[in-house]
């Protein structure tokens, strides 16, 4: 046996090194900061179809503005240089957030920073003003039965696709409490209270059993 690893030792070594590498990579990924969503209006981006002419305003009602929102993401296109835009978001009691973007933004992903929205606002109205001299086209669903966008005095059947982002960037660790809350939503009451904790526990069990089985294997 001199000069070579015995089978169980080789198995143990490879499993140990491999699992350590997995843990290392996982730690790097979990610690990486990135923009995180607070929600979306689930409108499919069927194409760039909703136009906003220079110096006009477009308003979309019936939005669910999620709490902890600090920016919004739109699919938008425009000739260069893209115009400056301003956003007002009003709830039933008045304006709840404002934001703007300077001229020269790059299509097609338009991120507009907003003042922080601490709590969810139902039935919000998002208004976008074109402050420049070029037309902007937004992606969304057109026509969208029952849903309308108000463009100046004109009512357009359709809906803009909007994604809402949390302020700045966050690592997965920072997002953990939020994730635990999100895991409890849209699920059966049988599992909603413990689903997030159960997933790593089950995977630890699976990996532990797999390692034990491999180490006990006779050649």
């Amino acid at each position, binding site marked *: 046996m001199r000069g070579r690893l015995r089978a169980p030792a080789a198995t143990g070594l490879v*499993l140990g090194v491999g699992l350590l590498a997995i843990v290392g*990579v996982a730690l790097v990924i979990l610690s990486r900061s990135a923009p995180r969503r607070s929600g979306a209006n689930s*409108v499919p981006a069927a194409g760039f179809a909703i136009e906003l002419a220079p110096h006009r305003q477009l308003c979309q009602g019936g939005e*669910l503005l999620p709490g902890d929102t600090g920016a919004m993401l739109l699919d938008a296109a425009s000739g260069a240089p893209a115009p400056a835009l301003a956003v007002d978001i009003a709830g039933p009691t008045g304006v709840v957030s404002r934001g703007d973007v300077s001229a020269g933004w790059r299509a097609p992903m338009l991120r507009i920073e907003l003042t922080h929205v601490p709590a969810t606002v139902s039935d919000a109205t998002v208004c976008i003003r074109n402050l420049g001299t070029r037309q902007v086209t937004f992606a969304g669903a057109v026509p969208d039965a029952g849903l309308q966008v108000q463009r100046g005095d004109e009512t357009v059947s359709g809906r803009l696709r909007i994604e809402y982002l949390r302020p700045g960037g966050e690592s997965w660790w920072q*997002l953990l409490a939020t994730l635990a809350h999100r895991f409890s939503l849209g*699920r059966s009451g049988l*599992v909603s209270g413990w689903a997030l904790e159960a997933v790593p526990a089950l995977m630890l069990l*699976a990996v532990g059993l797999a390692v034990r*089985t491999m180490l006990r294997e006779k050649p």
Partner: protein
Amino acid sequence: VTRPLLPRAALACALVALANGLAWSLLTPPFQVPDENAHYAYVQQLSERGTLPRPTLAEGPLSPREDTMLAALLSYGIAGDVRNPAPMTEAQQRTIQAAAGMSLSAKGTGDVLSATGNPPLYYALQAIPYKLTPGGRVLDKLTVMRALSTLLGAVTVLLVFLFLRELLPASRRVWSAGALVVAFQPLFGFISGGVNNDDLLYPAAAAVLWALARAFRRGLTPARGALIGFSLGVGLVSKLTLIGFVPAIALAVVLLARRAWSEDRRAALRGAGLALGLAGAPFALYALLNDLLWHRSAIAGGVGRVSGAHGRTFSFGAELSHVWQLFLPHLWMHPQFGYFPLWEAWFKGFVGRFGWLDYGFPQWFYDFALLVWLGVAALAVAELVRRRGALARRRGELAVYVLALVGLCAEIGVQSYRFEIVTGGVFEQARYLLPALCLYAAVAALAIRGGGRRWGPAIGAALVVLAIGHDLYAQMITIARYYA
């Protein structure tokens, strides 16, 4: 040497699959496993009305109770669009709770979308948790039904282990590693964690291959023939995809009967008869009940020509070409795909495309997976070459496994062509290949054996670690997709 029917290592591998499948079932939001809305509706139809679904002129709607819940969950907005996350706010949760609290009918029109034409066994099994889950809440029932699916996933892995034990009886160290590679396969875990009749197809297919390997190793007896027939019978009334295995099983039975002809002809013939009878009887009964009682076709769309829509016309020549091109380069044939299905649909899909095929890994991961796969395949081929003497003695058995895979691919190809002709849509999904999981495990097992006594254990451990890493990465992108 007599071995226990279920070794502890096999049970451990099955438990690994159970834990992994349960994790996937908790991770994936309700109705985000392909066609889960349709499969749930089938179970609901069976449980609430006691009848099988029937196609209607206009598809759907499903029951008001299920449709209301699907709308509250924004299911159709999330499915297919990677940028639409699962519900994230309390306001959405209130809508979902309000939908769950409504007193709505659980009876639909009788049409259950893409699942309408499926055979009923999986759904009959799922009717047990459906009925046993107290209250009428859709999400409670779905959760318990998903748990039953993961149990079937665990049975699949158990059968994969037993298949490897019969296939490579002298190499016990490869059995666990091969089964664990399957247990951590993320596409398998994802599908096992949802409500889908594939979840009964997989163990049935694994049982067929295990039964065949057992008969090739020990000879065809009435009991072993019955095992082959029973497994195929169960599979056929779970999902008709298993028809693809029929030519391979027929070949196997002929080869096994010929081998036993001079020694125990009587036992072999009884085995062959039982295989045929137990495979055919459930399907014949299903076809008869379809005709007499349920008034629907046993094979949705029939077996002959199909009528094309929007100018698409059916031709058997084009169908043959379609089946070829679905898996292989089109060569001189008129190209039918704007992409290379072997890479885009099968390889990348098998490595991992999840949800309603709306998210997957970054491109570099598929490229890396290809390198790993080429290495594993090279080791497996080298092992086959090295053992060519033994391989020549078992060439009949090898032909059966190859024919099983080819038959499965041909069956998928035929369905794909007919689906395209009728609807114009894309049919192929990598999960349709998972009935061949035993053969996937066999490739891994051969690669491990190819490493010999010196490197084999390290290769086995490396493959299991890679499978674990692959699975965990798939779960992380799932969390990112729906919740972050």
